[in-house]
């Protein structure tokens, strides 16, 4: 009779996913990290030293501001929309339509999204032209669609739906009995939000905001399609450093910038996971 423990084969189903992650996430990350320390004469820290160049510092700060603004605005607006969905009919048309739309729109970025904005509110867009005919000129101070303010507006187009998708489960976890219990104990609506719903939703809200931050920080295609000149944000600087055919072609430097992004996104994602764990404990 054979002895010993039977080896579980449950993990076999996850192999395709693990291979995919290894090839398209782990391996590129290792290559980028290694490349960031590689110079013409072997190992070097010069690529990281170059991160202090003024235009890189500016791009980094811009990226952080863009990510923070769109994360906070997207989180607030998305949370309001999620709350409206959660308090409506759970099998209603509104919920089905909005959640389905959010599922699509959260992934709707890149050239298509940039063109949608250019065609509607761009300087030749039909909405802008129509408003101009009615003496309403929102570009009177200059065309802002192609700078950071424009990016903020366009990013919100996918940030709000993403917030709805990641925050809705938490709002759904809030039980109506908690509000009624607060009422019967003598509490007002303000008391309920201050002592019960607020603290319960705070970790999920903060976690979702961090996810939106990471999402905006790493977004590239939309910005690339909308902004042709310069590199006001870090992903565009990375692109410039890789693809430039003139003096700025610095693949090692691009990798050092990418490492900065990877580290920030990794930290933010870890915080998100921690907060989600707390949310799951309270709002199952």
């Amino acid at each position, binding site marked *: 009779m054979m002895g010993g423990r039977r080896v579980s084969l449950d993990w076999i189903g996850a192999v395709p996913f693990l291979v995919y992650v290894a090839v398209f996430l782990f391996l590129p990350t290792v290559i980028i990290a290694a490349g960031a320390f590689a110079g013409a004469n072997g190992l070097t820290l010069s690529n990281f030293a170059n991160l202090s160049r003024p235009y890189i510092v500016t791009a980094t700060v811009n990226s952080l501001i863009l990510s923070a603004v769109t994360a906070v605005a997207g989180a607030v607006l998305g949370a309001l929309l999620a709350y409206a969905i959660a308090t409506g009919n759970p099998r209603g048309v509104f919920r089905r339509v909005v959640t389905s739309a959010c599922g699509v729109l959260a992934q709707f970025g890149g050239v298509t999204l940039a063109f949608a904005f250019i065609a509607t509110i761009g300087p030749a867009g039909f909405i802008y032209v129509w408003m101009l005919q009615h003496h309403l000129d929102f570009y009177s101070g200059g065309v802002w669609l192609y700078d950071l303010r424009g990016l903020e507006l366009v990013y919100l187009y996918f940030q709000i739906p993403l917030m709805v998708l990641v925050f809705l489960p938490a709002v759904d976890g809030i039980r109506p009995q908690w509000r009624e*219990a607060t009422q019967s104990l003598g509490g007002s609506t303000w008391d309920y939000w201050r002592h019960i719903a607020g603290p319960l939703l705070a970790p999920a809200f903060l976690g979702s905001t961090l996810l939106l931050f990471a999402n905006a920080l790493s977004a590239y295609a939309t910005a690339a399609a909308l902004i042709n000149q310069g590199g006001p944000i870090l992903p565009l600087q990375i692109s410039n450093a890789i693809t430039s055919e003139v003096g700025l072609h610095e693949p090692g430097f691009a990798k050092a910038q990418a490492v900065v992004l990877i580290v920030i996104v990794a930290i933010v994602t870890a915080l998100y996971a921690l907060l989600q764990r707390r949310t799951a404990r309270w709002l199952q």
Partner: protein
Amino acid sequence: MTAAAGTGGRTGVEVRLEDLRRRYAGVTALDGLNLTMAPGELVALLGPSGCGKTTALRLLAGLEEADGGRVVIAGEDVTNVPANKREIGMVFQAYSLFPHMTAMQNVEFGMQLHDVGAAERRKRAGDMLELVGLSAHVHKYANQLSGGQQQRVALARALAIEPKVLLLDEPLSALDARVRARLRDEIRRVQLEVGTTTLFVTHDQEEALAIADRVGVMNAGRIEQLGPPTTIYSRPATPFVAEFVGLTNRLAGTVKGGEVEVRGTRLPLVKPDTADGPAIALVRPEAVTMAADGDIIPGPMVGTVIATVFLGATSRVTVDLGDITVLAQLPTSDATSLTAGTRVRLAMRRDPVLIARDEKASTEA
């Protein structure tokens, strides 16, 4: 000082629901409900799903608005007073504890809203948790407590604010049978100790009959009968009450001259003025006995035992009479020999019976 004394030993107040009406999208949930609860009394509202019992409770709590009628607590009309000003403690079906607070914090919360000082709050919360037997669990969160413990904390939380009225909305329905019976007795003990007027809503007849001073059996938005549990069970006022509370044999018969003849036996009627004609007599299993002479000659009450269920002092015997199955509840000493297949002859005690018309005869729970 005992925990109960620590709760203040409040006496209850009178509660009146007067002609309460409520409709939801064309469906009548409450159709002129009237109920007066004496100070300190525990009244159970019992009825099937959709009968309006929870609506009555929610209108009393102020969680919903009535379309008509009045809610009067301690002589004060509170019909238009918001829920958070009514001084009502409420225990929900389940999952009502605030999950980010410990048991102690949950119980303290209501007092915190009433600006009770921290030291007093902690003392009273401790007393209340002691009262419900949870002194050892004060620092646990809801997800660290069993279902029964959570409901005890919810009870302590509701009572900690010293409410005028305590409302219990099917508080035991999510618990398993053993915990349910124990907690039911616990709730009654606590309610008697604090003396708060209490409305208990349930669809479980055993629960209602065991816990309440009076039971109101509800049907279609109205109370069909309100009375002590023994009266509800032994003298049901309507066929609905007779059939909803306890087991009932539905036996086809004929009403004639203020009596009903069922399978060769004439039984008196609860309502002797019932019109003559075919009818269904509602006969309790306790009113079905073994015939004294024991002769097994073919007849309308002779049949074969299908099953005997031991219930303790009594046993429930199911007898197939050929065209119908009848339940008899007998002393266990009389039922021990009645194994499946035994031929028996049944008789019926001449207790007054209710009549239900126009439905098929059967045995129903």
